[in-house]
């Protein structure tokens, strides 16, 4: 993946964030990863740093301050941010939730497995995926 792409990770659990980061790096992805523990902090960053290059968003649905669905909705409603690929990475495997996310325009929905081998494997696969996908530039 283009080095100019910044990965914005909105994840309330620091442990999860650390594990995701470690495994993405292990997959050989060298892009900068910015971690925001709350939805509002992530949204603030995304709104205030438009035009600074391409972005990719890793989003957890269960956040303490606002739901990931709300974030997804406001991202897709934002002219500047709606083209940014959003990868929902969450513990939830509720079918309705998954449908809702795709309806709202998320690019990929991944459930975090409890089993660490699977978890690490999934994230590394995601890293490999990062190395091949094309990301539009934010205007």
């Amino acid at each position, binding site marked *: 993946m283009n080095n100019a792409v910044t990965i914005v990770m909105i994840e309330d659990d620091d*442990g999860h964030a650390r*594990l995701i980061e470690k495994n993405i*790096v292990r997959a050989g992805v060298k892009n900068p990863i910015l971690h925001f523990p709350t939805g509002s902090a992530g949204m603030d960053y995304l709104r205030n740093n438009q035009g600074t290059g391409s972005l990719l968003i890793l989003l957890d649905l269960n956040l*303490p301050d606002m739901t990931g669905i709300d974030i997804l909705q406001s991202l897709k409603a934002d002219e500047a941010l709606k083209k940014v690929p959003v990868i929902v990475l969450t513990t939830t495997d509720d079918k309705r939730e998954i449908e809702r996310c795709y309806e709202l325009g998320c690019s990929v929905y991944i459930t975090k497995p409890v089993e660490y081998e699977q978890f690490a494997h999934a994230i590394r696969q995601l890293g490999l995926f990062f190395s091949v996908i094309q990301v539009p530039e934010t205007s």
Partner: protein
Amino acid sequence: MWTANSLRRFDLSRIPHAPILLGSAFAFLVLTVLVSMALLDHTQRERDRLVQTIDTQDRLDELLAFMRRMESGQRGYLLTGDPQFLDIYNDTRTQVLARLAVVEQAVSGDASQAESMQRLKPLVQGKLNEMSESLRLYDSGQRDAAVELLRSGLGLRYMDGIHDIVLKIATDTNEQRKTQHDVARQQERWLLGVNIASVMLILILAAVSLFVVRRANVTMRRAQQVLKDANAELEANVAARTAELTAANEEIQKFAYIVSHDLRSPLVNIMGFTSELEALKGDLFEGLKSSPAGDTNGADAHDEAMNGAIPPARLEQDFDEALGFIKASITKMDRLINAVLTISREGSRTLQPEPIDMNEMFQTITSAVAHQAQEADAAIDVAALPTIVSDRLAIEQVFSNLVDNALKYLRNGVQGQIRIKARNQGNKVVVEISDNGRGIERRDQARIFELFRRAGTQDRPGEGMGLAHVRALVRRLGGSITVDSTPGEGSVFHVSLPRTLHSEGKRISA
């Protein structure tokens, strides 16, 4: 609410003795019909007797007339000797005897007339004998003796006697007829009276029946209305209960979902960092065994290991980080489990309703947070509050949580103003806790009552348990809680509670 009272309203005893009333009226009607039938029968018999009396009189008159004709036949013969007169005499003699038998038969029922008849019979017989004697004398050639017999006036006296008796019987029967006529008139009047009475009775009966039927109809309509209302109320109640149950069910599902998700999160961490530790262990022991340079070491799963040896400081840092996350996750899981337990225990605790003076209770709450309020530069203003009957412990927890929250989420640099007041709403009391704090976004206003969920900037400590706990308690007390809020201006929490909480055994019957 509707069951006992409304059912009592359509009691049938509201139509008093209707069956007895109708039954006796019908009995009267039958009685009048029977009486008029008896009267009619009686009148008919009287009329028959009258006719018979008139008939007897006619026969008597005929008897007299025939006797006179017989007499004139006798005399004509005696004068002229013409046998034509003798034929008249003989013919009328048969008639006279026949009439006499008829009249005797007819008056046999009447004592006085029968007696008159007894007197009449010898006279008639005497007259007949006198006449036949004169004719016998005439036929045997003794014309003078026959005329002499006539002249003696014996026949005349017989006739006078007969005439007198017939006249007397006529007078008697006339009297009798008058009486009979009067009786018949009297009976007709009676019959008329009875008939008028029965017509009036029928009219009254019809009026009473109409009234009873109309009243029964009105009662029935009222009962139907009551039933319809009760049905509508029942449907509304069922709809309300169904909505409540659906909401409760959704909440339970959401609760299960939240709990399972929130318990899974730390589990992912524990599993993850345990595996990281395992990998680190390989690196650590490899590092201890071999020289730092040249060797390819470490688990191949660990990419850092492939780039050569890891500096011990880095290893230690990773090791500490992993252990730290594991410990934090275990602590978090413990906290979550405790939170779920607390809420579940709260649900199974027996509520003990008692009168609570809310003024006193809020005084206790405000003095407990006085220090906090002073630090936050906030004023708490409590208006006059009512006394309610509820569970003291639960009520205290609800309101101290809400006051804590109001103090916790004030705006920086703005003097806090927290107001508590109450109003009545039917059999409920609505307590309002308003603040001029940071407020809550509309989309978060339902979410804040969910377990482990918080709204706005996460700059205050907390687990996201308080309001979930408050809502569970308020529900348990038979109330509800809602919030109105404008971000940046403040929030108002409305807690609606029953004025009197019934102890749990009685709640079902309400």
